[in-house]
């Protein structure tokens, strides 16, 4: 046996300097926690305030009904369906193009002038303000391509706007698949395309989907691009009609409708703008929640 250990430790005691360091650590940790917690406050405040103001108008009828009496009463069905059309159409274009482009950039391209130019373009496009995309959509789709003011023009504009972000997030998801997985495939003689199908896509799908879905909510919230290219103040539609629009027609949209009832129309029932905001926000949160659930589920199946 070694000598009996002293009752009070003498070796690793806190010196004054150590105590100071530990106090600084405590302060830092608390501050960081505070900042993280502060994130939650505005979200709860916004949600609470909106719900409280919107309460009188919040019932299923508000969602299914059409606006009445010069939009001062009634519901928001045409705008809701319009937003579904716009977002669905734009995603139908931007998702395949964006994902395939990202696969090319991440899996096939070598580091040369051409790919660097593409990368630069992607990064810069992601930073272009939406109002500029709106103007581009107006020139390119409405006038040059002669699609006119229409759902088609508006969704193509939204697609162009979301594409660079989709490319960037997809590339990130692809890059997070360990390189060793690809090597394992190549070393049994799989082609690149087989490797992509067999290991790269299955293992990055959760990241790719999350990126896509986040762009859904962004597209649903934008006003400028659709206002210039295809959204309209009012359109007469049947209550609850799921297919009220043709693609070459203009449509109503939630974001634009919110702007209209909040600022353009006099004597609107007080709860209507708030309820419209709640529906917009609720749809976005619902979509995001789906993304999170999907991600958790897919990650649960991931075994590395």
């Amino acid at each position, binding site marked *: 046996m070694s*000598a009996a250990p002293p009752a009070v430790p003498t070796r690793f*005691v806190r010196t004054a300097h150590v105590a*100071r360091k530990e106090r600084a650590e405590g302060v830092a940790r608390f501050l960081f926690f505070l900042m993280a917690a502060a994130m939650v406050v505005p979200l709860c405040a916004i949600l609470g305030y909106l719900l409280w103001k919107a309460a009188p108008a919040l019932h299923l009828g508000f969602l299914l009904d059409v606006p009445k009496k010069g939009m001062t009463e009634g519901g928001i069905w045409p705008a809701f369906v319009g937003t579904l059309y716009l977002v669905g159409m734009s995603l139908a274009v931007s998702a395949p193009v964006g994902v395939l482009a990202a696969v090319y950039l991440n899996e096939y391209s070598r580091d040369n002038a051409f790919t660097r130019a593409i990368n630069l373009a992607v990064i810069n496009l992601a930073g272009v303000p939406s109002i500029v995309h709106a103007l581009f959509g107006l020139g390119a789709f409405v006038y040059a391509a002669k699609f006119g003011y229409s759902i088609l023009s508006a969704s193509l504009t939204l697609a162009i706007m979301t594409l660079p972000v989709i490319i960037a997030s997809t590339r990130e998801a692809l890059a997070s698949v360990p390189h060793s997985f690809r090597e394992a495939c190549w070393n049994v003689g799989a082609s690149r395309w087989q490797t992509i199908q067999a290991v790269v896509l299955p293992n990055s799908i959760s990241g790719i989907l999350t990126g896509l879905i986040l762009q859904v909510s962004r597209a649903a919230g934008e006003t400028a691009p659709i206002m210039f290219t295809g959204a309209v103040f009012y359109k007469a539609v049947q209550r609850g009609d799921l297919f009220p629009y043709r693609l070459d027609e203009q449509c109503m949209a939630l974001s634009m409708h919110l702007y209209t009832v909040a600022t353009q129309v006099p004597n609107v029932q007080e709860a209507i703008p708030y309820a419209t905001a709640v529906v917009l926000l609720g749809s976005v949160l619902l979509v995001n929640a789906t993304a999170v659930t999907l991600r958790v589920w897919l990650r649960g199946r991931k075994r590395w």
Partner: protein
Amino acid sequence: MTDAAPLAIETRGLDLWYGDFQALYGVDVRVRAGIITSLIGPSGCGKTTLLRCFNRINERYPNVRTGGVIRVLGEDIYDPSVSLIELRKAVGMVFQRPNPLPISVYENVVFGLRVHTPRGELKRAALDEAVEKALTEVGLWKDLKDRLHDRATTLQLEQQQKLCIARLLPLKPDIILMDEPCSALDVEGTRAIEELMFELRGRYTIVIVTHNMAQARRASDECVFLLLGKLIEHSRTADLFLSPKEARTAEYIEGRYG
């Protein structure tokens, strides 16, 4: 009743779990001060895990639980009054891959001093002296004295590993833990690090993990053989390799498994 040499590290009934998986089972190990002790055993037997217990760095992993007693330099390191900061100052660690920080050689060596000394008390002259002393001790001073302000990550791997050892020295550690410090190095580098260990022997207690048995044999005074998280045998290196007491040890050093 006292041992001939004082103990640097002593564990009693040390258990460790990663979640539900138990990685160490009742390990009783007694590492004597001032000598080189090697931990050997097949891959996954818990060498790294045991080593990382000695400065409580395992706690940084989520869901690690430990049981039993660990004494370092006679102190129970789980005593609430023990300061982790002071413990890690006294028990330094060198990793498998050299991990110099991407700053200058000079700043790497004085990094620990800067962390452990109030800013006002750091004198340039003292820092310069500490750098020269530490680099001399690991045999880098001649090569690097004109390159002190080069980025440490541009050095050769062997120099990087020596630098990682030098980084510990200004803090005057008692114990240096090395986790397979040569596995990223070539033959020359390995020899250089082993020679350095002999240089440091006596002034520091060195515990080295290796899965290279020849290295354990060349470079250590005592040898601890672990298998599946249990300590099988601990004896003088010469004895362990010439006349192992346990059949499992004999089979391992003959190369029957592992």
